[in-house]
């Protein structure tokens, strides 16, 4: 019996060594300890975003010369990670004309959405080829503040869509996880 324990420990130890090595040599590897703020709320970052000037989401004049100057904020995959925002911050940037993107299906979008939001169903968007994703998004300002949301609760498509958009070179993508449920329960502007 003791032999089995020893063998189990050997297998686990070898796995750890190989795993850490593979991660170290992989240029797209991950940090060993995940930053707690990748999905969780980070108040310091929020304050910074809150005071940022919100660019006109439809002003694409700067897109031509856009070369992602914010390299320091990029992750190892070469894009700036979306951040979570609270309902207060979502409302604040809503009032300053941030672009709201609804990641749910067209039916869900048609029944109720944040006023002025556009609809990009994640399932459809994900399956588009790269050039079509660019084509869809090129009418928006790459430095404009974008807020992606879905139903709220445990829906994941807002996160997935936010990452898709961030990977296209958008520098200020935010995820509002409260979603349409929290938004409408607060009595904030919706359509139709």
């Amino acid at each position: 019996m003791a032999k089995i324990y020893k063998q189990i420990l050997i297998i686990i130890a070898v796995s750890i060594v190989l795993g850490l090595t593979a991660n170290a040599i992989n240029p797209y590897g991950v940090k060993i300890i995940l930053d707690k703020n990748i999905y969780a709320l980070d108040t310091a970052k929020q304050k910074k975003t809150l005071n940022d000037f919100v660019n006109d989401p439809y002003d694409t004049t700067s897109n031509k010369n856009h070369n992602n100057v914010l390299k320091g904020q990029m992750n190892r995959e070469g894009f700036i990670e979306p951040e979570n925002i609270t309902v207060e911050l979502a409302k604040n940037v809503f009032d300053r004309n941030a672009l709201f993107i609804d990641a749910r299906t067209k039916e869900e979008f048609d029944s109720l959405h944040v006023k002025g939001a556009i609809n990009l169903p994640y399932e459809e968007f994900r399956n588009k080829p790269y050039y079509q994703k660019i084509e869809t998004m090129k009418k928006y300002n790459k430095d404009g503040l974008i807020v992606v949301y879905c139903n709220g609760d445990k829906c994941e498509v807002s996160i997935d869509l936010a990452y898709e958009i961030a990977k296209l070179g958008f520098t200020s993508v935010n995820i509002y996880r409260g979603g349409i449920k929290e938004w409408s329960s607060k009595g904030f502007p919706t359509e139709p």
Partner: protein
Amino acid sequence: MKEFLSNKYVVVTLRVLLGLIFIYSSIGKLFNQADFAKAILRYDFLPIYFVNLLAIVLPWLEFIVGLLLIAGIYKKASAFLAGASLVMFLIALISAAVRGLDISCGCFSLEESSSKGDIIFRIIQDFFMLAAVIIVYKFGDDKKEEAPEISTGITN
């Protein structure tokens, strides 16, 4: 039934099959820690600090266990680890199903489309694999043959 399950060929077949499944499921993740970490995150199950570590180590553990199962080295230990990881997957899957999480499993491919039916299917699949692991663990220990193998494994 017991005679059938302890039949050498049945046990070896199950062991090799399990090994192949483990290798198959690990191969896409060995160098794709980031996507696997995201898949784990979606389960909203582990403390966030352990997510990446698991994404780094687990695929390699699966891979090695798979190789050992096929080769028939460290039979009991590899079957035990296979069973332990299957139990872990089961707990994660069932908790996701109970909480109604609409997530893709992340079991084999990391780009599976998500649907709840998928999770239920994986749970059933896991139970079958767990049963196979138990058979391999229980009857796979051919003492007359295994004794020299273990001693060489340790002295080396």
